[in-house]
């Protein structure tokens, strides 16, 4: 009995020392090494791909923003975002999805509402949007709630509204969208997309530089 207790204690001691040694390798050495390389070689990316406009930081090109006025291109809905409830000295955005199921009444209602709003907002005096034209990404929330992109179809849909509100020719805004449409990587990886923040920065420059 006594012997087995000593043996167990010895084994647990060895296990603890193994954990501490491996913590040094994988929990201290490894992250510091990667951070060193990252900060030296990819400084901007390692710190969040901050994007500047008019000399100030206006966000990250990777993190989608909400609350654009109708003069600008709109992001996807983000109904899954939360605010922090634990460490409330910060006002962190909590990434997340709605997690509503494909047969959820709540999800159906929110999609109906979003669709009606997209149709209404984007129909101008000489351009009518049909509900069937509204792409899926315009009325659904993304996985992170921080999707920086919209589909080219959703961007196209907004061109007439944006042109009208900014008193720009439709063709000019259309060209802006074309220029900011990124195709699939190597032609087949992922989906074509338009980065909303970068598009809106370019739009503002166009409007202000006129």
């Amino acid at each position: 009995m006594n012997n087995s207790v000593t043996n167990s204690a010895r084994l647990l001691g060895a296990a603890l020392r193994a954990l501490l040694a491996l913590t040094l390798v994988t929990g201290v050495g490894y992250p510091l090494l990667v951070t060193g390389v990252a900060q030296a070689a990819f400084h901007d990316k390692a710190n969040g791909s901050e994007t500047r406009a008019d000399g100030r930081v206006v966000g990250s090109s990777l993190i989608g923003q909400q609350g654009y006025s109708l003069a600008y291109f709109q992001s996807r809905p983000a109904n899954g975002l939360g605010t922090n409830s634990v460490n409330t000295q910060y006002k962190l955005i909590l990434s997340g999805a709605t997690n509503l199921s494909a047969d959820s009444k709540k999800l159906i209602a929110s999609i109906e509402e979003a669709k009606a709003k997209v149709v209404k907002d984007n129909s101008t005096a000489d351009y009518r949007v049909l509900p069937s034209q509204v792409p899926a990404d315009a009325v659904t929330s993304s996985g992170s709630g921080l999707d920086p992109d919209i589909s080219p179809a959703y961007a196209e849909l907004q061109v007439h509204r944006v042109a009208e509100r900014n008193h720009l020719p439709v063709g000019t805004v259309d060209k802006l969208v074309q220029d900011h449409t990124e195709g699939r990587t190597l032609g087949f990886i992922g989906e074509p997309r338009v980065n909303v923040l970068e598009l809106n920065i370019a739009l503002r420059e166009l409007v202000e530089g006129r």
Partner: protein
Amino acid sequence: MGPVLAGVLQLLALIGALALAYIPLGNHMARVYSADRHWRVERWIYRGVGADPDTEMRWPAYLRAVLAFSLVGVLFLYLLQRLQGVLPGSLGFSSVNPAQSFNTAVSFVTNTNWQSYYGEQTMGHVVQTAGLAVQNFVSAAVGMAVAVALVRGFARSRTGEIGNFWADLVRGTVRILVPVAAVAAVVLVACGAIQNFSGIHEVGQFMGGSQQWNGGAVASQEAIKELGTNGGGYFNANSAHPFENPTPFTNLFEIFLILLIPFALTRTFGVMVGSVRQGYAILATMFTIWVGFVALMMWTEFTHHGPALQLAGGAMEGKEVRFGVGGSSIFAVSTTLTSTGAVDSFHSSFTGLGGGITLLSMMLGEIAPGGTGSGLYGILIMAVIAVFIAGLMVGRTPEYLGKKIGPREIKLSAVYILITPALALVLTALSMALPTPPHSMLNSGAHGFSEVLYAFTSAANNNGSAFAGLNANTDWFNTMTGIAMLLGRFLPMVFVLALAGSLAGQRPVPATAGTLRTEKPLFTGLLVGAILIITGLTYFPALALGPLAEGLAS
């Protein structure tokens, strides 16, 4: 090019990349686990541990070392979270409460990475990098060690010895996981994943005002999270978060990392048992199931049945534009057929049948290709069962790799495959029968039931993904999923190691004309069938109540 074709091409590119890595990595791992020499850094660690890496262990000693190391890991991680409030470098985040600390500690040590917390508001730098990420490495290394011990059981004869746990643990970490993860982390940073130790970042927004982000060692954690089939995200949105998974390329790269070691271990197995064709037969089994499930998932997600998705015109709820339906489908199947549980899109909002596929993927026991290590030992147990069934058909004593599958071997294997279904189904039933646990469900009806079934299936199989609508941060779910993860991880290991010891002690039986040729396609077919029928049918009634009911109604 349409999105379906692009999805298929991504799948083909992924298969090509995995095929290129298969032989070099598989051979490398076989050399690592068979090498006589020790690296200098390894010698330092052995000296610190006070263990002789060249002493062979019998299975009870090997098991005791696995359990001791894991127990210490749980206690250490628990204390780290409980003390977070007073640790420097924690961004001023408070300590985590006891039930959640227990759940999270168990979750990361068991390679599950079920998360009942929001990463960005709960865990500071120290807990993330020196606690959670460390277990991402070592829990994967433990899985690989146990798998290699079982392989040695098949490869060795007339000895009860199955290797040295400390040597297997340290080598797996230092020679396999750390080098690959370091390269992968740098690739992720180059594409935009963040890697810094700054505090909370406050930056301006386009329309005015400001937003706050977490800084952190995200890329380094992301790399091992996928490579070690762990799955615990730095952020709540996991691999859907742009800082974890910034581009379509990183998405495909992360899927590659998830599948890399589990597939390549079949090569390691083949080399170590002296017949790479035996490894190919196991590989073919894993590959068939994986490709089949990916195809099914793409089909159901692209057709997007379900009233909400029909109304929206596509299954984009819970999915990112840059990944699209194709990339998200490949990720979802790969993460649930391994023990990863990372998500780049939210399974709860998939079509009813798509959600069912993620559930069934986990229910198969995560063996196609399965977790790092756990996938290999899981499928070898199924191979033993398949050989036994074949033996029954022709009335011969079954053999596998020159070892007799006698009463002891088949009992150990049979108990192994009963553990996880028992845990998942009993705890789901208890949760539905008790008055308060169902209050955690976000959705109602069949989908609500699926949320609970998914939670316990995920925990018992050490997956860690979720139908995340479920509010799992209650004492009931924190405790019960914690217990499911512990028993679902370590009870099977007991039987695997006992089997390894039993096989290693046998004398080999020479192959005769009547021996079942387990390196042939016929055996692969038999094994696929055994996996689908035995484990699939165990869960059929539960699946019928949840995802099948939802999928057929829409």
